[in-house]
């Protein structure tokens, strides 16, 4: 299994080439002021992330998506290039905050709901303007070993 980096230039079709996170070369114009601050990027296996430039990692806070199998402290891997469909778990702006919700389409109406059997509040999305829907959840990550998580998530 080859590793590659989220945010890295996409590898060739075989996915075997690991391209550095940012080319350590001179720009013809201005040298990147970021160069001294470049970090090792977050790494994920290629088959998990079909579209690296559009993939971002979030940390989940709260239990409202428990019914979807997403717990507090899990990592949510979000692909912004995916188009949302009914039933998708999405990151959306609700009340000025980033929120993880399930998208429900009933006819023409789009709404966002929790997914926790113990709660059943529903948020209606009045209008879906640009920027309100941040991205679609691709998968989530949970460490089942507490010590291992502590050492990995520094």
């Amino acid at each position, binding site marked *: 299994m080859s590793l590659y980096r989220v*945010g890295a*230039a996409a590898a060739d079709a075989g996915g075997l080439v690991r391209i550095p996170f*940012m080319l350590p070369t001179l720009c013809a114009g201005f040298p990147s002021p*970021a160069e001294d601050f470049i*970090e090792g*990027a977050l790494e994920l296996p290629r088959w998990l992330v079909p579209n690296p*430039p559009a993939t971002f990692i979030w940390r989940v*806070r709260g239990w409202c998506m428990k019914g979807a199998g997403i717990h507090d402290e899990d990592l949510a891997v979000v692909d912004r290039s995916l188009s949302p469909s009914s039933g998708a778990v999405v990151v959306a702006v609700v009340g000025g*905050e980033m929120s993880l919700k399930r998208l429900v389409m009933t006819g023409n109406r789009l709404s966002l709901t929790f997914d926790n059997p113990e709660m059943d509040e529903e948020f209606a999305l009045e209008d879906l303007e640009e920027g309100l829907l941040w991205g679609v959840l691709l998968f989530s990550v949970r460490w089942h070993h507490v010590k291992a998580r502590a050492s990995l998530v520094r």
Partner: protein
Amino acid sequence: MSRAIALIDGNSFYCSCERVFDPKLTGVPVIVLSNNDGCAIARTAEAKALGIKMGEPYFKIRDLCRRQKVRVFSSNYALYGDMSARANTVYRQFAPDVEIYSIDESFLDLSDVRERDRVALARDLRSTVRQWTGLPTCVGIGPTKTLAKLANHIAKTIPELGGVCDLSDEAERAAWMVGISVGEVWGIGRASLARLTAMGVDTVADLRDLDPRPARQSLTVVGERIIHELRGRACLPLEIVPARRKGCAVTRSFSSRITERTVLEQAVAAHATRLGEKLRRDGLAVSAVTVFYHTSEHDRGDPMRAVSKVVHLPEATNDSRHLIQAALHGVAKTWREQGPTPWRYSKAGLVTKDLVPLDGAPRPLFGALDREKSGALMAAMDACNSRFGRGAVVPARAGLVEKRTWSTKFEMRSPRFTTRLSEVPRVFAAQ
């Protein structure tokens, strides 16, 4: 097929990177400050409307920012670098030949795209970048780089164009040029602007109509080239393969002035460590380094001193320890004991040129450094720092990162959202 170059750049790029992860920043004024939180180097439209100028010192606008609730950030280069890499990945899917001009500007070769399809492609690119990365951009298209840059300026200033402007058509181009000040042309700096104004050249059209040959006298070869480029004759090729690194520098302004030798030594050693990392990443090495440190030109009335010293190494190396030794030697040779009014140093750095590939560098007959052991040790150190975060393992002389009192200040930096697992943004699944 006619030649076509597109210039795509991020709108208020650093600010836009911050906005991607925080919805509360939408619609409010946002600025990003330079190193040590010195000057405003990126401003959103809302911040510009408040009269905040490019490069304005932060201390001058601090009150304004507080009054107007401007959101102020230190530079988060880890984030901006990653977002820039993402954007360029998207660009390459639309046009394989990309020249990364700066962290937020890239030239794309669209010559193979049919003329009537170019604007549609640019619109598609723009909306894809927006959708995938969250970054707003503008695209300018023209037969030369200078015209692409001009088109980009038009796309930025005229909202009705929807972020895309194509100057491929000569008549259309001419119409725009009459109305744009010559100062907006790429490569026309303040000095040439004054000279042009004196010559009666006010608009881009005036500059284009200058006779290039005589113009060379007053505007140099660069000016002559600009005139040709404005006429649609390309003089600047797309630099798709970046030039090989010839020199390398690590320089930093201190967060506060340094008067003690031990502190300066630590700073210089830390710079040498960083220099080693940069060289090793590219497989390069140096056989000499220039160490410099100086007082600030802003401290008028204080004693001034600027020091620069070339130190030669026994052979080309990229071992941080040898570079530190050389750097400290440079300080030892130049340090002067402080008197009653001390020199207050504001900046130090290491500069190198004549980089050579480590593998090809000649070995000395006597006094050769132990390259094998050194390589293994440095590789282990780099591996630790890549795994556990930069600064996890440092040479003792460079000091622990947390204890460097002189480090460049980034006090209002947002989290490194995309490069550190411990700093990824939070999404709420809560009531």
